[in-house]
C-alpha cells in the first residue's frame, strides 16, 4: 500500500509536469505539444481499457495458451499508440518525437491502473 502511494506520488507528477515540459522543449510549439499530450492521454486510456478487457474476459480458467494471452495484452497496450503515432506524424510531428509516445503510453496506462486500484485498497 505504502509502496503504491509512493509510486503514485512519483509517477503522476512525472506525467503531469515533466513530460509536457520536455515535449514542449522538443516541439517548440504549443499546438503540437497539446496535440502530443492529448494523444498521450487518449492512447493511455484506450490502452488501459483494452488491457482490462482482455484481462477480464480471457483470464483463467479460460484455457488460452499463456503466450496468446500475453500477446493480446501487448496488442491492447501497443495498438492505441500506433494510431496515435500515425495521427501525430500526419499532423507534422517528427517521427522520433511521435515514437516517444510508445513508452509514455505504457507508463500512462500503468498510472491509470494504479489510480484505479487506490479506491480498492482504501476500501
Amino acid at each position, binding site marked *: 500500500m505504502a509502496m503504491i502511494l509512493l509510486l503514485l506520488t512519483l509517477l503522476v507528477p512525472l506525467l503531469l509536469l515533466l513530460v509536457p515540459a520536455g515535449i514542449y522543449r522538443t516541439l517548440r510549439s504549443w499546438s503540437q505539444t497539446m496535440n502530443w499530450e492529448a494523444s498521450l492521454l487518449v492512447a493511455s486510456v484506450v490502452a488501459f481499457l483494452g488491457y482490462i478487457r482482455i484481462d477480464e*474476459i480471457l483470464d483463467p*480458467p479460460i484455457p488460452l495458451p499463456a503466450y496468446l494471452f500475453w500477446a*493480446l495484452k501487448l496488442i491492447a497496450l*501497443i*495498438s492505441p*499508440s500506433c*494510431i*496515435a503515432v*500515425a495521427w501525430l506524424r500526419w499532423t507534422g510531428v517528427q517521427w522520433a518525437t511521435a515514437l516517444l509516445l510508445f513508452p509514455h503510453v505504457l507508463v500512462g496506462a500503468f498510472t491509470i491502473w494504479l489510480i484505479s486500484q487506490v479506491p480498492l485498497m482504501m476500501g
Partner: protein
Amino acid sequence: MKPSSLPLRANERNLSRDQMGILLALIIGIAGQLIVFLIPDPLDILAPQIPMLMPRDWQGSYIGTELFFTDNWRASYNADTPWSPFVWSEKRGFYQSLYLTGDHFLSSVDQTIVWYADPIENANVWKKELDAGAYNSWPILESHMGSDKPASFLACISDPGPMTSPPQCWYLAYWEHWFTAIFFYRQSNGETLTEDLLLQDIRQLTARADELIMSAPDEPCFGFLCTGK
C-alpha cells in the same frame, strides 16, 4: 535528367516512405483495436448452456451478481477441506445471484454450479454430503436419492440471526455432470419480518433448478473451449 531534380525525387521518395510508415502504424493500430475490443466474451457465449436460475424463474427478481467463473467452491465450508483452482478439462464453476426486493427486505438466491468432466467424480464428491444427515450442522429437511431426478437435499436453519428472516436454506443437488448449490436467504433492514422467504418459493425454485440441470448439455463449451470429455 537535370541535376537539380535529384533532391526533389529524393523528397518524393521520402514522402512516400513517410506515408507508408503512417499507413502501416494506422493499420497495425486499427487491427489491434478491432481484435482487442471485438473478441467476444467467452462467458457470454457459454451462458445459455449453463443451467442457472434466471429472473424469469422467480417472478419479480433481478440479477444481483452477474454470472462469473468461480473455482472457490468447496465440498463443504470446512477449513480442513483442501482447495485448489479448477482445471478447465476437469471442472468448471459458475456463480450468479438473484435478488428480490421488498419494502423492508432483500431476498437472495445465490447459486453456484459446477460441471464435472467425470460424472463419477461428481457422484463420489456429493455422496459424502448427501449421506451426512446434516449440512454444516444444518438439519436436512428433505432429501431425494432416486434416479428419476437429481439427488438432492434441502438443509435449513430456523434461527439464522437477528437481521435474517427464517428459513435460511441450502439446496444441493447433482445430476450426471452437473452439481448445484443454492443458498436462499432474506435480509431485513431492521424491521421485524412477519413473512418468510416462503418455502413455497424455495420449492418452486429447487424444482426448476432440477429441471435445468437435467436438461443441461454434457459439456458447456464452444470451439477451442471444448475438451470432448
